[in-house]
């Protein structure tokens, strides 16, 4: 056994998992059944899963082509754009939410126009939650997919071109199936991040039970009133996500990238 590797690895694992153990020890388990029967908790859990999945879908639709653009084409300023993709990572989420309000809010650059043209406004709606989560989670998807695209064998794409496939057909019928594991890995990261998203969501979409109150927001409010309830709620969220991720099995990191 290479102890010089195993020891730090176990330390690293402990570092990530022990705090979870701390939560488990501290959680008031006896209240769990009662909490889980609270409609508001189930509602928040459902909303979290739905919005995180929809945000992941949005990220896939916009982020995969973006990753393709960054990986497969060359244009001036590509390097800068690629660095800008990481912006939502560095931006404190609350500021991200403010930025979204500035652009998509009712008085925002685009929101204003959306409102007057379609009478449609994003903030404080479930769609707003999806937008906020997508904004924060998309960099993960883009960066993972771009990596997979760069690692993929472009010769299959060339082969498809010689068979008469347009660039879009090449993308849809060859590139995408080949980088599927990388896309899946990116989608998992993206989904997990969206599921845990708090700051941008509460700022951009507010905190309305049943409409925009996701689990992390419920956790925040619970922290205000009963901190231990907050721990139970977090653990519920964690358990659900770990079950879903384990169910997705080895595939998702499997042949990724």
């Amino acid at each position: 056994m290479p102890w010089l590797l195993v020891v730090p690895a176990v330390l690293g694992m402990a570092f990530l998992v022990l705090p979870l153990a701390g939560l488990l020890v501290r959680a008031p388990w006896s209240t769990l059944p009662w909490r889980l029967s609270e409609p508001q908790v189930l509602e928040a859990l459902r909303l979290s899963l739905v919005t995180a999945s929809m945000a992941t879908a949005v990220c896939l639709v916009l982020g995969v082509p973006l990753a393709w653009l960054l990986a497969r084409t060359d244009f001036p300023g590509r390097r800068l754009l690629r660095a800008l993709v990481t912006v939502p990572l560095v931006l404190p989420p609350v500021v991200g939410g403010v930025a979204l309000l500035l652009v998509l809010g009712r008085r925002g650059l685009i929101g204003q126009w959306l409102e007057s043209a379609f009478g449609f406004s994003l903030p404080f709606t479930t769609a707003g939650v999806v937008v906020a989560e997508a904004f924060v989670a998309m960099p993960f998807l883009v960066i993972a997919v771009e990596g997979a695209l760069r690692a993929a064998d472009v010769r299959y794409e060339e082969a498809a071109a010689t068979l008469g496939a347009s660039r879009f057909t090449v993308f849809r019928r060859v590139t995408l199936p080949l980088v599927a594991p990388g896309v899946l890995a990116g989608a998992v990261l993206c989904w997990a991040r969206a599921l845990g998203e708090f700051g941008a969501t509460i700022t951009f979409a507010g905190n309305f039970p049943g409409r925009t109150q996701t689990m992390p927001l419920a956790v925040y409010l619970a922290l205000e009133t009963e901190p231990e309830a907050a721990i139970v709620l977090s653990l519920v969220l964690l358990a659900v996500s770990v079950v879903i991720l384990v169910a997705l099995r080895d595939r998702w990191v499997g042949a990724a990238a």
Partner: protein
Amino acid sequence: MTLRARIVVERPAFRLDLDLTVGRGEVVTLLGPNGAGKTTALRALAGLTPLTEGSIELDGVRIDREPAERRPVGVVFQDYLLFPHLSALDNVAFGPRCRGRSKAEARLLARELLDRMGLAEFASVRPRRLSGGQAQRVALARALAVEPRLLLLDEPLAALDAHTRLEIRSELRRRLSGFDGATVLVTHDPLDAMVLADRLVVIENGAVVQEGTPTEIARRPRTDYVARLVGLNLYRGEGDGDRVRVGDLAFAAEEHVTGPAFVAFAPRAVALYRARPDGSPRNLWEGRIDGVERHGDNVRVHVEGPVPVAADVTPAAVAELDLTPGRPIWVSVKAAETHAYPA
């Protein structure tokens, strides 16, 4: 004339400049050492590498401005590059689908082609589960399915084991003779080249160094690379009608050449003697044994001397002559098996 191309591709430290014409139904083989520019030439024809200069005309129409997907070419890549996520059938149907056929039509066509290749029963199999030979045929079917007017094959046999290779080579020969477009084939293997090609084009360092039928080239190599490829000893010298002088030596040959000339002869045309043999002194010199190796049923002996030479002798002769490295030896070459031709 089907294909008429001038291909110029410039890269840092490399320039490919090639004139290539291929007739309808003709198979032209590009041969050359690693890095000569063969793959580059094929890629330029297919539209995967842009031309720096030149033009490509197919049946009188310029295609060099078209993107790859609009050129009427079919490409069989060195390692086939069958799409791993599609069945053999869908691989073959891919091209027709892209060129506008309906799904049903494309699959029908693909099924027919696979049938003709003797692969009907593998239609639904993924490439990973095909043997090398089967994969090669699927790749060929895939390239033919788009009804190309120019077929490009990049080392199509390189990935095969010796046994499969024999089979696939004759299979390919058969398929190509049924194809009426132009075919350009790249290979490293002299045997592949000889068997498959109507005409060989030898490239070295981005430029054509020799062109001709396989027999012509096998008999009259013009560069060391070609000579080694076809297994001949080759020297460059000065012909004075009767003989060709190479340094201090003078070779008598079948042909009479004046001026700069090549002489070439096979290793089996070389005889070795422990002592200076009697008789005519033509094509005779003394050397020193450099190395001995088995070569098929025979033994190949490398001899240093005024010119380096390879000789094939029988194992019996090795024992009899005690051909161990370092030993001096007399070398004679049969004039009747020596060819001379202008350089």
